[in-house]
């Protein structure tokens, strides 16, 4: 990679971070209306290309509970929730954002974890260590990841 390109990239990243810090809606400030969230959590559209990574094991782990036919390479797709095929037809962008941010606002008592929430947990642990959590609580997904996964879900049309 040339020094020039590297600099340009770094500049781009820096710009993105600053924009995010300004425009980002904090987890406790998210406004739900009938389970939906109208405005982008970052103030910008998400990047659908990052969707599959987030849906896979690791950060989002959506695949533990959902099947996605468009991602046949992801092994062991779960059956707890409905297949996500066609969710882009069934739900609006605002509804999908609400479902990913906190599904319990859309589906009463849902088993689906709230991915953009930092309060109200019982015996919050430090990731998967089994130890108590200390310090500031971060949501499971960042605002940007929520937007990316929402943008990807919108591409899942029948």
């Amino acid at each position, binding site marked *: 990679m040339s020094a020039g390109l590297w600099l340009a990239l770094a500049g781009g990243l820096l710009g993105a971070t600053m924009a995010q810090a300004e425009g980002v809606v904090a987890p406790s400030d998210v406004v739900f209306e009938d389970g939906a969230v109208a405005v982008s959590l970052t103030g910008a559209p998400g990047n659908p290309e990052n969707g599959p990574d987030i849906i896979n094991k690791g950060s989002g782990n959506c*695949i*533990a509970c959902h099947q996605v036919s468009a991602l046949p390479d992801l*092994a*062991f797709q779960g059956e707890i929730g409905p297949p996500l095929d066609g969710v882009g037809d069934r739900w609006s962008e605002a509804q999908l954002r609400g479902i990913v941010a906190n599904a319990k606002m859309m589906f009463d008592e849902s088993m689906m*974890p709230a991915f953009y929430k930092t309060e109200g947990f*019982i*015996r919050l642990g*430090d990731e998967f260590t*089994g130890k108590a959590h200390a310090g500031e609580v971060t949501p499971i997904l960042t605002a940007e990841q929520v937007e990316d996964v929402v943008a990807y879900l919108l591409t899942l049309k029948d």
Partner: protein
Amino acid sequence: MFQGKGALALAIGGALSLIAAGSVVADEPAKLVVNGEIEMVTETEAPAHLDAFDTIYSGWTFRTPETRMLQMDDFDNPAMVFVDQAAEAWDTVDGSEGKSCASCHGDVAEGMAGVRAVYPKWNEAAGKVRTLVQQVNDCRETRMGAEPWKYDGGKMVAMESLISVQSRGMPVNVAIDGPAQSTWEQGKDLYYTRFGQLELSCANCHENNYGTMIRADHLSQGQINGFPVYRLKNTKLNTAHARFKGCVRDTRAETFNPGSPEFVALELYVASRGNGLSVEAPSVRN
């Protein structure tokens, strides 16, 4: 280390003998009969206190045919080496009083018949519900003058298995009323509490979704009639509390410790959800 390897070798040996027997047992085993003689109830009517479902199932019924087969014969069951070790410990004098378990309880097959099936159980003198492990340590400390064993350590889980073997095939029948009731209620509360950042309760997975796949795992009802359990994954015996700990940890929660009052209460409650299933320990899981 050595034990682990020995057990692994045994597990592989068991698997090999399965392949050899493959043509004979073409169908997956639907009924669990151990050593061709102990008939296990792996599916039965749910106990009256449980409204959530009509039928309760042993965890055995959710495993692959290969894993199920390992539990059908003690020669294939990799847990049995540890049971043999515990049988030696049963006869071994330990502590300041110069006694072994056998000094007071005699032959384990007679002294411990039926015991596993009713534990955890209220202990009048202690004024609380005791797990089998706590009872063993009480005997070690107060009656033998010996050091207590680590709650979920190797010696203890082997002894718990040896004692459980003496109840194999008998129906689980823990008491949930009388003095045990408040502990049982506490366990029930814990069972339905949505812990951790994922906000999941035991019931979310084991009551509402048993029979479905969560990631690569086929969800069972989370019964403990088979505990202690030998897991092919970690090639050792595992206590129910170790399993609880893993399940709570996986919700991104701060877990409770093995032997904690919370897990004792939870064990009583979970055991009671399996009242009617056979004691299967030591069973085999992936």
